[in-house]
């Protein structure tokens, strides 16, 4: 399948994984593999070495940390995240976004870390992660880094993750628990489809200034927060739904592709933001 001889290595620790990465050119980390294997088959990526992360202790765990933050290991499949009681109780928007990705069998392999590292403008989980102000924790040849999700995406397929770094966990801060709202997406069909566009509108439990989140997917080179729309909702709540929608329309930079036109996407950003904002009550 791969266009050149491939070596498969199983890492038992993050240190071993990063060392294995540094040994040869064109080494790739492997978590769920649901995108990487397709890329390999299409010849778009041709790794010389795959480093399987799934047997590294801890990377497959979901844990509440001492500060109340929830850490989701890089190798936890989306299906497990969506069904996890802590996620469902404290971060229901994340569960919703996880379930929007792929199909049931795909979600049994695909990981949220993979979804984020692919940096697709249409990444569904990015909507919730941005709204919840998650952080990416990574280990690399030059040590560990913590990268806020805000600013993580640089463009389609591009992130600020340092070369050779592997994501170990996505961490949801305790203060984001209880953030409520809804994730609306339009797609060409109802079952298993990439989003033509996605809109998440949420409100953090603390309320007040800075409580609202408006995140758009598939309408810009990266998943996009719209601070102007958030500020409107902070000030006037659902009464500002129409203005927030307008702000979101103005902020998005959609393109034409096989899933829809830029014009439709922009109009629908308005419709969906207005709906989601109104639903906040």
């Amino acid at each position, binding site marked *: *399948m*791969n266009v050149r*001889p*491939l*070596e*498969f290595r199983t890492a038992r620790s993050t240190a071993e994984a990063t060392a294995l990465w540094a040994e040869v050119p064109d080494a790739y980390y*492997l978590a*769920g*593999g*649901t995108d990487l*294997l*397709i890329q*390999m*088959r299409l010849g778009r990526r041709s790794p010389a070495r*795959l480093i*399987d992360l*799934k047997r590294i202790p801890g990377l497959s765990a979901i844990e509440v940390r001492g500060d109340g933050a929830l850490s989701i290991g890089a190798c936890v499949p989306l*299906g497990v995240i969506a*069904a996890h009681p802590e996620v469902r109780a404290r971060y229901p928007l994340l569960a919703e976004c996880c379930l929007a990705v*792929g*199909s*049931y*069998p*795909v979600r*049994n*392999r695909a990981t949220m870390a993979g979804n984020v590292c692919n940096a697709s403008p249409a990444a569904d989980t990015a909507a919730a992660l941005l709204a919840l102000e998650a952080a990416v924790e990574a280990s690399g040849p030059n040590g560990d880094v913590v990268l806020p999700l805000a600013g993580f995406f640089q463009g389609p397929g591009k992130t600020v993750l340092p070369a050779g770094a592997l994501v170990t966990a996505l961490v949801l801060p305790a203060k984001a628990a209880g953030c409520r709202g809804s994730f609306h997406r339009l797609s060409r069909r*109802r*079952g*298993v489809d990439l989003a033509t566009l996605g809109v998440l509108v949420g409100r953090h439990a603390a309320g007040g200034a800075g409580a609202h989140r408006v995140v758009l997917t598939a309408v810009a080179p990266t998943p996009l927060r719209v601070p102007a729309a958030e500020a409107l909702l902070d000030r006037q709540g659902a009464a500002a739904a129409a203005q927030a929608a307008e702000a979101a329309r103005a902020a998005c930079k959609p393109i034409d592709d096989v899933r829809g036109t830029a014009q439709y996407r922009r109009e629908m950003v308005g419709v969906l933001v207005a709906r989601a904002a109104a639903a906040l009550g």
Partner: protein
Amino acid sequence: MTQRITVRVNGIPETAEVAPDRTLLTFLREDLDLTGAKEGCNEGECGACVVLVDRKPINACLMLAVEADGREVVTIEGLAKDGVLHPLQRKFLEHQALQCGFCTPGMILTTLGLLAENPSPSEGEVRRALSGNLCRCTGYRQILDAVQDAAAELRGTGKGAAR
């Protein structure tokens, strides 16, 4: 360069030397001659290759054989025991839930995974779980009926629950 793996397939430990880029699907179909899992798209979109790995339905085209080392795999060939069909297989027959049959193994195994997690799914939950398994023949109606009937039987509330 190959790698030695041992995978328990339908209850039988299978040890083999495989190339690292061999998918689980190719391993099952070509090395073990278990051709019930089908290659429909090789991109995880059609579900014809779904098998259970550690009891979870997965697309065998999106998993490497080496990743299955030490794991438990169930394919369609492993469902019937001593010639007695699994209730899900029987219900697919009773409801005409198949036509050309190419999607059937994947459809049955995805359903099996669902019913293990959720023995009483609503129609909406069944539709959601099966939406990654494409069928071009049936229009799905009889599949959805078969799944509900099988779920009832497996819960012990359906007709002919004794098995």
